[in-house]
């Protein structure tokens, strides 16, 4: 079972308190874009995923805790969390990820 650091509770809690919520930073098309988007763009938004083997940006939901969504960088080969960060913060740069690994 994974131990996951919730950036809102600022605590490490067991995986069973959380729900995985898929790849992070996939932007939902806004109302205006929606009118002109092609099928291909819709497909990209709905179905296509990076599915990265390595450092993956993903969403988690502390649904049995503070009930907040947050983002994380996790290595999908080792399942080790590198960092978690609050919703609304930018995708960490490579430099930030490197720093977090130390």
């Amino acid at each position, binding site marked *: *079972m994974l131990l996951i650091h919730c950036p809102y509770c600022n605590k490490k809690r067991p995986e069973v308190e959380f729900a995985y919520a898929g790849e992070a930073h996939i932007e939902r098309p806004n109302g205006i874009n929606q009118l002109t988007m092609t099928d291909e763009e819709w*497909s990209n938004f*709905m179905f296509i*995923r990076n*599915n990265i*083997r390595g450092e993956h940006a*993903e969403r988690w939901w502390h649904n049995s805790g503070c009930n907040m969504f947050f983002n994380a960088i996790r290595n*999908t080969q080792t399942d080790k969390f590198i960092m978690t960060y609050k919703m609304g913060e930018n995708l960490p740069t490579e430099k930030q990820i490197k720093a977090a690994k130390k």
Partner: protein
Amino acid sequence: MKFSAISLFANALSGHKKWPSQFPNKDPKKEYDVIIIGGGAHGLGAAYYLASKYGITNVAVLEKGWIGGGNTGRNTTIIRSNYLFDESAALYDHAVDLWDGLSQELNYNVMFSKRGVLMLAHNVHDVQSFKRHVYSNRLNDVDNQWLNPEECKEFCPPLDISSSRRYPVMGGALQMRAGTARHDSVAWGYARAASKLGVDIIQNCEVTGIRRDSLGNVAGVETAKGYLKSKKIGVSAAGNTSVVMEMAGLRFPLESYPLQALVSEPIKPVFPCVVMSNAVHAYISQSDKGELVIGAGTDQYTSYSQRGALHLQEHNLMSICEIFPIFKRMRMLRSWGGVVDVTPDRSPIVGKTPVGGLYVNCGWGTGGFKATPGAANMLAYTIKHNEPHKINAPFNLDRFIGGRLIDEAAAAAVAH
């Protein structure tokens, strides 16, 4: 050499110490007509059918580890074809047709055992949904029948059908033509048969890049054993498909999840069939070695680690004990995980890709073992003709743009 009663007898005389190796370990040639990436049973089967049915023998199967070491050797071997939609019924039933007679065809015992798969209904929704499956299957000429609780008990004596149970058995859908097979044998049998027809099986040969020519078509692959040329490449890399496709600049509608299974200590035969329960969420059968083979669903997060969390096993076993209290005191012997490639509609992708000469067979997720011969044949057909067969045509990549999904996701809730 051909396996037969006589060869078995002759080798018994020499204490079974003189069996020749099943296929040679080869170094790759510089160029092939077709390269298959991934030495699981799907990839090996595709190479076999290319050589045996479609006349292309200058073929290599490149496997990064050892053949069958991926999901082929990690799955719980349930074979069935009672899927809801016409497209799926045709594809999976094609596979079951090929399972019949596969041992003879390959001269290798894949131990296909049609012991029957029983899917239990525990609530009104299950009853309605499974009956719908039975009727839909009947229209597609796929066998599937409805059993009442007493008939379920008769078919599977360890079942407790008393109405006082928390999840009472309200009936079940039984496919008699369904069952299990020996997973390793399927990989080894295809490899041996393909190798005999001239296919090179190359292990410890990870593909690290896909080269394309000036027109954008594939030209060859970079591997751990050097650059190999080929104008046709079939990708059958299961959980690692997204990684391989990225080498050709393609992003796929796939996510890779860990899927676990476990076996108990071996016991005498107690369990005659395969039982699945979507509502309680587990499935079980007994291997020929006597182990109870148990599984359920994937872990919640994507991962390539080939292992999952212990609480999933706990949940899985709680479900088994709920349905079969007689197994409460069994001890579990081993557990393991694989990486399964899951599509948004839980149906596979078998066909062409936007890159010329690049073909794909993926997205089988938690349930592709049953489809092995069918998937392999369809991939081989598509590579040969540069067009899909009518059975795999609906399982194209474009459905995720056009929206014509084959939504088995809604139809089956348990992984198998």
